[in-house]
């Protein structure tokens, strides 16, 4: 039976909902699936372009620290590889690129980040 010990473990919390150990609550946005995929994310990614740029820049900096060849390789290869992905999602990623002003390759990298970072 588990018993908490040491500084990183503790007894079960109580009464923490909804504010304890909470920084903030995110906004809610809408994506209109009636629009063509190439248009769906433009408005939202334009509104949040600063946050998206900061996140992706962080991803690129981290990848650079691991190996400076990773990002140029990814930026060169991924746009071509993206063409083998489902077309609707390729178009949605293009709409994010269009709205945010970020390179399409960077957006593709962000969208395969589960696999990339698991690896």
């Amino acid at each position, binding site marked *: 039976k*588990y018993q908490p010990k040491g500084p990183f473990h503790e007894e079960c919390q*109580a009464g923490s909902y*909804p504010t304890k150990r909470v*920084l*903030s609550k995110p906004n809610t946005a*809408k994506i209109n699936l009636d629009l063509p995929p190439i248009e769906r994310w433009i408005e939202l990614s334009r509104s949040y372009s600063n946050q998206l740029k900061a996140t992706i820049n962080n991803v690129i900096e981290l990848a650079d620290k691991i190996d400076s060849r990773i990002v140029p390789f990814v930026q060169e290869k991924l746009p071509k590889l993206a063409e083998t992905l489902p077309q609707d999602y390729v178009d949605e990623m293009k709409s*994010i690129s269009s709205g945010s002003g970020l390179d399409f390759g960077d957006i593709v990298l962000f*969208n395969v980040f*589960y696999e990339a970072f698991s690896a």
Partner: protein
Amino acid sequence: CTSIVAKDGKGGVIHARNMDFGLFLGFDFKNMTWSLTEALRPSLINIDFVRDGQTQFTSASFIGYVGIFTAVRQKKFSLTINERFDVDGGWVGIIEWLLGKHSAHWLGFLTRDVFEKCDNFKCAQDYLMQAEMTLVSPVYFVLASGEDPIGQIIVRDREDVSEVVTIGQEEDKSKSGSWFVLQTNYDPSNEPPFFDDRRHPGLKCMSELSSNAASGDNFISKEGLFDVLSTKPNLNMLTVYTSLIDIKAGIIETFVRECPFPCTPW
């Protein structure tokens, strides 16, 4: 990550999760934070995917990401994804992809497909369990039904289902698979490593919730699950957000989290 689906004592289930991300991806010793975890927090957003004026499904997501890590289709099902480490892991899938084998599914697009194409739990379950479907990376799918008190952990290899744990299959009420399922980042049939054991702390808190509940069993609230997910080490320095999913209402309540010092790095 920690994902939980628990019977609510009213004939349904509640689904909740902690999303932990950014391990080994740059540690800021000055501020004692993980760089990617910090970078992801401001880009968190809840998204309603709308067709014909009606919300089809709702996700907790990051700006710029078109896939699904946490989502609900009202009254039908909800899904959360936990990372799975495996020898035959994502790097094999990525290399295969680069070498031209494009039949594998990237996780985010596959899970988005589930919500685009499935209108019920069975369809989602079949889609996620299809043995012939190849994923680029292994993963844990945690799936809940909005129609029956069903919660399930689907352990996916890249090419097969290796294990399934479902509410009701375990008699010991303190274990995952009894009146709840709880999944971290290790296979249910194996013990978690001593250096990253979030399963037993989570089970302890679930057990306490059950014994504290008025009915003594099978009764739990979203507030109770929030407490479990607010307890270290299930809450840790990698925790980006906590989501509480009301499947019947189709609502995801999301919280950007912080873990006060001293806090485990993962």
